[in-house]
């Protein structure tokens, strides 16, 4: 992916992702990011940024928290079944949205994708990772798998106060 992309998320939803990571610590949390891709951001809904508004981007407008299915190794693995994916897609569709990505936590590890993350990743989706250190959520990052599947590209996150979500 040549250009760095940007994921927009409200402060409220970003806080929910962090809280989910703290809640399941020392296990990994996981969930779906519901939103819109490639449409103009509804500027009026957000607190006004200092700079100019970006081009059409990806925007998270809802979450679909899921249960980590990896009972055998929940501290360093998460798994979302095909049935969970279908449920998340239905939930998104019911709100006029689509599943634009997935979030998970890295308990006591940095918010960087692992080799295991890369081996199991799909292209296009945004993969949000929140680091949870000693039970306290820390850095949150977002990543997208490159077309060649060899690396993730960093995706910027714009966390802003949004009136409705």
């Amino acid at each position, binding site marked *: 992916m040549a250009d760095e992309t940007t994921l927009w998320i409200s402060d409220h939803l970003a806080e929910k992702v962090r809280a989910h990571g703290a809640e399941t610590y020392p296990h*990994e949390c*996981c969930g779906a990011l519901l939103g819109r891709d490639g449409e103009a951001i509804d500027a009026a809904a957000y607190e006004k940024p200092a700079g100019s508004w970006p081009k059409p981007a990806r925007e998270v407008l809802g979450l679909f928290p899921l249960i980590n299915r*990896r009972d055998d*190794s929940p501290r*360093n*693995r*998460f*798994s*979302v*079944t*095909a049935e*969970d*994916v*279908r449920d998340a897609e239905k939930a998104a569709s019911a709100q006029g949205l*689509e*599943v634009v990505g*997935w979030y*998970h936590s*890295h*308990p*006591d*590890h940095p918010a960087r*994708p*692992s080799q*295991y*993350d890369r081996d*199991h*990743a*799909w*292209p*296009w*989706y945004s*993969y949000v990772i929140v680091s949870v250190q000693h039970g306290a959520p820390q850095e949150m990052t977002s990543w997208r798998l490159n*077309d*060649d*599947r060899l690396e993730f590209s960093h995706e910027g996150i714009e966390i802003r106060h949004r009136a409705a979500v």
Partner: protein
Amino acid sequence: MPVKVMIPTPLRPYAGKRDSAEFKAATVGEALTHLTTQFSDLRKHLFTEDGKLRSFVNVYVNDEDIRYLASENTPTKDGDTISIIPSIAGGCN
């Protein structure tokens, strides 16, 4: 009437932005071969280098998981719908 293959959102950029494609195919494997021949960029996202379906790629024929049928040898008939459904996995080390 051929079989219809539903393409999941994350793979549509590699399939000319299409959400489905139709092929004449007697098995699931044949349909997937047609799909990845027509859209060669899809191949590495669906199959490993040695040609096996990736573990997080789930294939259904009319809502039946092919792992519980005959995998890629599962027969198809005209009018069947093949769905490719992601499963998602990861972890911190």
